[in-house]
């Protein structure tokens, strides 16, 4: 089944350790980057990198998941799976950016948020949720790019931005194909099937209108690192300029309205209201009424 193979191949490509990671993008496009550390609460999470620097002549703040290029680095970086401390570092940097009016750039590259004991104890769910809330109303322009693996709420927590771009060989899904197969079919070996079913490729998401651009990879990113970084930089500049222009012309409140509508309108559902109206039952439950 060639189709399945294709989505699963994308997953493999997206996970390649040799693929450029957030710090590679930062090194290539952010001048004078100063990395900032810590959540001011509990720890400095190495699975999230954050800092301030210049992107094409303007100061920006950058937040990204950080995977390692090898096993040792990955152990240090917890395979790019942030704990609540990582999301709170991001939160701090988002607020910092808002205070000074700096745009925010995010690089998405995580299998998901860390599912460990300590992360639960310190409120992983709360940390992710607070970031979603903050990003929804952040009063500066924001752009994020899925550069590898975009997995679950752990990816979403730093990607609710004005523009969402994806590298051609990156993926974005509600869960990893393995987790999906295990949950639905108790069989993680069916991951390739799940990968296909989850519609997780950049092409799929572009089709759903969920992302704003696919950054092409004529060659896979890890085989053409410089070209990829340049293409990503150009795409970010294009989108950032656009939303800066909107902000300059129509005000930040207009940008926030567009951002709200962008996420508010994602969803696929059916309205059967009329069918119900024609079949309205004559009796009601004690407390359950309807205004139809």
């Amino acid at each position, binding site marked *: 089944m060639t189709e399945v193979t294709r989505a699963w191949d994308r997953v493999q490509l997206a996970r390649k350790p040799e693929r450029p990671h957030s710090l590679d993008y930062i090194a290539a496009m952010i001048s004078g980057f100063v990395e900032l550390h810590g959540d001011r609460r509990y720890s400095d999470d190495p699975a999230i990198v954050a800092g301030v620097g210049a992107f094409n002549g303007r100061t920006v703040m950058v937040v990204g998941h950080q995977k390692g290029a090898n096993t040792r680095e990955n152990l240090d970086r917890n395979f790019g799976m942030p704990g609540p401390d990582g999301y709170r570092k991001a939160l701090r940097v988002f607020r910092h950016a808002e205070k000074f009016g700096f745009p925010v750039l995010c690089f998405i590259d995580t299998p998901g948020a860390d599912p460990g004991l300590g992360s639960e104890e310190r409120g992983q769910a709360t940390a992710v949720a607070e970031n979603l*809330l903050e990003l929804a109303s952040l009063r500066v322009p924001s752009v994020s790019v899925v550069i590898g693996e975009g997995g679950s709420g752990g990816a979403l927590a730093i990607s609710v931005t004005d523009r969402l771009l994806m590298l051609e060989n990156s993926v974005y899904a509600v869960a990893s194909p393995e987790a999906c197969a295990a949950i639905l079919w108790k069989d993680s070996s069916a991951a390739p099937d799940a990968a296909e079913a989850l519609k997780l490729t950049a092409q799929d998401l572009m089709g759903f209108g*969920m992302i704003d651009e696919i950054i092409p990879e004529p060659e896979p990113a890890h085989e053409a690192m410089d070209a990829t970084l340049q293409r990503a930089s150009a795409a970010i500049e294009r989108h950032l300029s656009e939303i800066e222009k909107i902000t300059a012309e129509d005000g930040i409140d207009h940008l926030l309205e567009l951002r709200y509508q962008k996420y508010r309108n994602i969803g696929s559902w059916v309205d059967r209201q009329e069918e119900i109206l024609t079949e309205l039952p004559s009796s009601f439950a004690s407390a359950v009424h309807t205004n139809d």
Partner: protein
Amino acid sequence: MPDFFRRKPTFNRDDADQDGPVVPDGLWVKCHKCKDLVYSKDFERWYRVCPKCDHHARLTATQRIDYLLDSGSFEEWDRGIVTADPLSFDANGDVYKEKVQKTARKADQPESLITGRGRIRGYDAVVSATEFAFLGASMGSAFGEKFVRAVERAIELRLPFISISSSGGARMHESTFSLMQMAKTTAALSRLGEHKLPHFSILTDPCYGGVTASYATVADIIMAEPGAMIGFAGPRVIEQITRQKLPQGFQTAEFLLEHGMIDMVCRRSELPATLSLLLLHYADATMGRHQPEYAYAGTPGEEGDS
């Protein structure tokens, strides 16, 4: 037109209640936790809480609303918004459309979320309640759309918002559509907050994944029912990954209280009193009007007082 689009005149307790009481005959129910027998009518009168061990049995969305709101006050909204199949999910013999039809019949509800307005001891509020029997109250597009519409109407009507949540996790069959409902519901609450309207969140057993990591924990006040299991990742996943035995009481409401994640553990029977008190306190901010005289007997929510 399937039958489940109709509102249910009576509860359908046994189907919907996965951890609920086993019924040996019609008159008695057996507590899922302590295994003691309780007289059925008493059990219902006690909000389906075991008088012996205080186990809070799971409720359907309809039961939630029936227990919490003033009788006859609930006006349901958007009952027609139901699940579609954005991914045309059909893999490994798992056909989403069929699954939804089956779960809807089983839950006897058209969707995993009920929304509307009602009154709690006379105070108006917009309310959402999850239906766990409907695909584990996972957050699909219809769930998200109904939630956001309810929040937006709360803003129009200048009413406080109360969410009652349980969830098994994400709706795999809608993948990124499901994921993005986290952003969508939270963005709506951000607007609610800008309008100075409060959101009170009630977490019930079990509450995991996307729901816990989005709208349910960005509330002005968070309550949980005693013993409710609440978390981001499920305990089995955590045990598999960390290969550690989880500590006693891990992810219970009481554990979350101790770890600072919720404001109080509130018994089901005290929820109406506590919520109406809060609605009173926040009425000024909500309605821009002066509050009536205060005359209370006692302080609810004492269980939070650890």
